[in-house]
């Protein structure tokens, strides 16, 4: 039986309004800016796709994108194996398990800008423990001036801040493996490596997919920590996409190019995440199906 009842629309209306105001309208404003030019006085002129063409031809954006990809690649390559390693070595139960969990959660609870500030002070050559120690050891370390020092500090900071997330997720995955698997592996005389390769890793797969996806998206959008630490410097050495975007939109007030930039930025994250997700779930299906 089919009834014509349009009342249902009123029930979803609040959600529509909420989503419209929180996501759709702001995004549309950005779209709106990206196809217009303004010279102040709130006067706008139609610019078509000019800003997009501009941006695609801009070396500055490609450089920022390149740095961004390298950064995300490096931190994923460090945080995922390290997180798994930490999870494998955490106690399984008892007081120390809880203790480790709390300890591991601590970095995750610290706000981004505080993390930036902590490392900014920690790394200072004059008063920071890390900077001063390295300097005393005769290592030429100054994150405000050296390219490698700046990158090393930004990466170390991210690893310090976010490896816990991977470790906690991997730990949850490990905890869900029944004891019988380990006992069966003992009976089959499996080596420690084989236990990891054929039992632990496959069972952690789901949580690791989530961990990698979260870490990728988050690191690709990173702004606050390097902004507080290096401000994108020295030069443009640590100017990642977000930092560049903010410079362009708020520093130079180039609303049009910045809008075009941010739309492409958004698309890149979405496409990469989507492809990643599809690949991982397809692998899962292949495994389950045949």
């Amino acid at each position, binding site marked *: 039986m089919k009834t014509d009842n349009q009342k249902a629309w009123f029930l979803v209306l609040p959600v529509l309004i909420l989503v419209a105001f929180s996501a759709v309208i702001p995004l549309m404003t950005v779209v709106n800016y990206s196809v217009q030019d303004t010279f102040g006085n709130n006067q706008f002129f139609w610019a078509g796709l000019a800003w997009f063409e501009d941006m695609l031809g801009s070396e500055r954006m490609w450089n920022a994108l390149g740095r961004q990809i390298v950064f995300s690649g490096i931190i994923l390559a460090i945080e995922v194996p390290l997180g798994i390693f930490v999870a494998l070595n955490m106690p399984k139960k008892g007081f120390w398990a809880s203790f480790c969990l709390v300890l591991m959660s601590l970095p995750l609870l610290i706000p981004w800008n505080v993390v930036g500030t902590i490392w900014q002070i920690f790394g200072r050559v004059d008063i920071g423990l890390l900077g001063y120690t390295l300097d005393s050891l005769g290592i030429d370390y100054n994150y405000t001036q050296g390219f490698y020092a700046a990158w090393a500090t930004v990466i170390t900071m991210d690893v310090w801040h976010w490896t816990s997330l991977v470790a906690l997720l991997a730990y949850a995955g490990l905890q869900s493996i029944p004891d019988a698997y380990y006992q069966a592996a003992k*009976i089959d005389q499996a080596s420690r490596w084989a236990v990891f390769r*054929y039992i632990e890793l496959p069972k952690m797969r789901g949580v690791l997919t989530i961990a990698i996806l979260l870490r990728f998206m988050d690191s690709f959008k990173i702004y606050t920590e390097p902004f507080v630490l290096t401000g994108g410097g020295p030069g443009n050495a640590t100017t990642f996409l977000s930092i560049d975007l903010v410079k362009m939109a708020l520093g130079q007030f180039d609303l049009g190019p910045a809008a075009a930039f941010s739309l492409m930025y958004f698309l890149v994250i979405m496409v990469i995440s989507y492809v990643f997700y599809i690949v991982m779930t397809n692998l899962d299906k292949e495994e389950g199906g045949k």
Partner: protein
Amino acid sequence: MAKITLDSLAHSYLNDPQSPEDFALQELNHDWVDGEAYALLGPSGCGKSTLLNIISGLLIPSHGRVLFDGKDVTHLPTADRNIAQVFQFPVVYDTMTVRENLAFPLRNRKLPQSEIADRVIRVARMIDMEGVLDRRASGLTADAKQKISLGRGMVRDDVNALLFDEPLTVIDPHMKWELRTQLKKLHHDFGHTMIYVTHDQTEALTFADKVVVMYDGRVVQIGTPDELFERPAHTFVGYFIGSPGMNLFDAQIDGTKARIAGTQFDLGTGYALKGGKTKIGVRPEFIRLGHHGLPARVTRVEDVGRHKIVRLDLGGQEMSAIVGEGAAVPDGGTHVQFVEGGVNVYEDDWRVSPERGDAPVAAKTEAA
């Protein structure tokens, strides 16, 4: 394959056990004869899994020794005992194919490739899985996965024993029969020593040559299914095995006479009693309703299809009787008689043998 000997074996999870209650497993001496199929039967928490884990080496017993063919293996780790175990939940290596799963224990033992391939084919034929050798193990049904974990044990020629820890728990009912039948056939064809833990009496009685009944950390009886049925050594065995379980009556025994709820009857033989609390146990199958015997009152009749279960009240004590599907059940007052040889006498819950020896049971049910 090997004979497994348990020598004064006992286990406590506590560091300093004092009283018998501190033991999860009471002291036990037993030989598991090479090539026999045993079932370890008992309710949850009776210590049967503890015993199995001690045999497999996952648990080191706090007291006593475990010997394989006379060799002390008490402190040997699981991997060196050469046993196979099938767990409650199917354990397969998800990312491997069925073939790789079966080959895994052999590859870890560094056997030559050609021999591995031969043995995998042979064991796949045994467990009836030749057709799916190249499929991923993770996509298979629970019963197929259990067969793979069984196959991983049998692929080793020299395996000392196959241990099963409630392996049919997660299997669909219609597959349980099939898998159990296959297990029996495998045992018959290849003669591995098998120890099968379960809390399901049907599984235990259909699978095993010998059933080991455990209760409260203690082995209360080891016997063939028939022995457990006709001569339960402990009131628990009588009650736990059978559906419904054995009727137990508080009784006074004086020479060859017994008295239940004020009515006296002849046992036909005397019993060497030591003055403990005496009970008489009679299986519902060995009870006849009629005009003679002890007066009882029918309280309820349950028709289960193949036969009827009659619930009666015998001078304040509840009892059950099984009668044929077509038998007429009187309303209210009736009399009950016990089939000759179907009466067991218990003193402080343990069976006392009659002085004249056990008489064979005359007939099981009227219907049978």
